[in-house]
């Protein structure tokens, strides 16, 4: 059985079809890139998958369980983690506390009224931070981190939730080329190590063609191509709407 099965997903905003009839599958341990022009519906797709938006129709099943209609927090607890296009962290907390929040949530300790939060799951959080190379900055407030480091914190928060499916919205946007490759290589090894499926959007074609196992292409809300990176790159329709003659 596939890890994620999306069937006939559709959503419109005031008569504009942002996403229509989108279907695809994703296997455990696989990296799937979702590409397409700005405004093609990529972010809408993500918001539908993690419950931020409700689809007008269609179905999303994670290991056979239907996700449509569930709250985002419920979908997370079923195993869907996410990083954002514009990084979202808890700015008033330290890097380690950000990860501790995820662990507290995962172990259902959020309602604790007495034991200080900063003393719970400290070592576990530190271990996750070491894994993404942020161990040395655990005590720094998230509000003062460099952009690339924030992206790593987001990744640490995502994997601390031990997701079955990780959604990454433009994970390397705003990073230097070297950093991009490094972050995606890390994601790659985490995915294979933990059998986690990864769906990501990206504009940097070096990242897409260097790291994705498979690529799907969205244009005006519809899937227009799907397949191995090289096949998608050679597809004349994809070149026309998205890649241009640079590819």
């Amino acid at each position, binding site marked *: 059985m596939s890890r994620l099965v999306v069937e006939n997903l559709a959503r419109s905003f005031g008569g504009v079809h942002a996403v229509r009839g989108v279907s695809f599958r994703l296997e455990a341990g696989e990296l799937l890139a979702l590409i397409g*022009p700005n405004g093609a519906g990529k972010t809408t797709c993500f918001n539908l998958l993690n419950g931020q938006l409700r689809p007008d129709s269609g179905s999303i099943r994670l290991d056979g369980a239907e996700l449509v209609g569930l709250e985002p927090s419920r979908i997370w607890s079923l195993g869907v983690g996410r990083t954002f296009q514009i990084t979202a962290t808890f700015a008033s907390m330290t890097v380690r506390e950000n990860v501790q929040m995820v662990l507290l949530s995962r172990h259902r300790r959020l309602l604790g009224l007495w034991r200080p939060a900063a003393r719970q799951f400290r070592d576990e959080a530190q271990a996750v931070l070491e894994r993404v190379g942020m161990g040395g900055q655990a005590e720094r407030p998230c509000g*003062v981190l460099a952009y690339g480091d924030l992206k790593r914190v987001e990744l640490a928060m995502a994997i601390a939730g031990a997701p079955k499916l990780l959604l990454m919205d433009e994970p390397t946007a705003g990073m230097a080329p070297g950093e991009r490759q490094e972050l995606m290589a890390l994601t790659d090894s985490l995915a294979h190590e933990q059998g986690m499926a990864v769906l990501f959007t990206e504009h940097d074609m070096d990242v897409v063609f260097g790291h994705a196992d498979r690529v799907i292409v969205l244009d005006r809300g519809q899937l227009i191509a799907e397949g191995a990176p090289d096949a998608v790159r050679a597809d004349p329709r994809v070149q026309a709407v998205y890649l241009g*003659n640079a590819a």
Partner: protein
Amino acid sequence: MTALLTVDGLHAWYGRAHILQGVGLTVGRGEVVALMGRNGAGKSTTMKAVMGLLAERRGRVAFAGTDVSAWPPHRIARLGLGYVPEDRRVFAELTVRENLEVGRQPPRAGAPLWTPDRLYALFPNLAEMKDRRGARMSGGEQQMLTLARTLMGNPSLLLLDEPSEGLAPRIVQQMADAVRTLKAEGLSVLLSEQNLGFAAAVADRAVVIEKGVVRWDGAMAALLEDGDARRAYLAV
């Protein structure tokens, strides 16, 4: 070639973080300069500090022979410095036409004169959606509108912050074409870029900064040949 923009010993802070630590650079008349460097190096901060948008800054910024270091942003803009921010920031509730109106300033000697019709000719996409609100436009269209809106101020120098970031490859090509057209019109451009390919396609000169200090300054062609500098400062 006389320098249109001269930045000297520019410092800037975000709270306690000392982001710019004495940046110095020049842009000559008719020149396109690419400000390059990794994320967090201080490219966007340089742009904002030059434009007067940061409260905590120190140093000298001279534009068109006038010291504008202590000026508020609107006076700097009226002197002919046009700023195109990295995150687009179109006025979402205003139509394309109204967005252009906000940018309108009187004609300026020594700078190309722009009208909505000339801009619609330059960006045909916009001509098809004059009454569309900014919120209903795609990212690429918004990027074009931001640039067109700034041109309505008839600037002699453009500050283009990360013009290719987050855009589809096809739109990036259009953007590069637009920058070359503007150069041909006589505009000077200072653009910040991480995308070496884009910078190489449009810029005459490159200035590389790292941790708030200029590390490399020279012809674009020289940077392309200097593998050590590229690896050291740009990680490519």
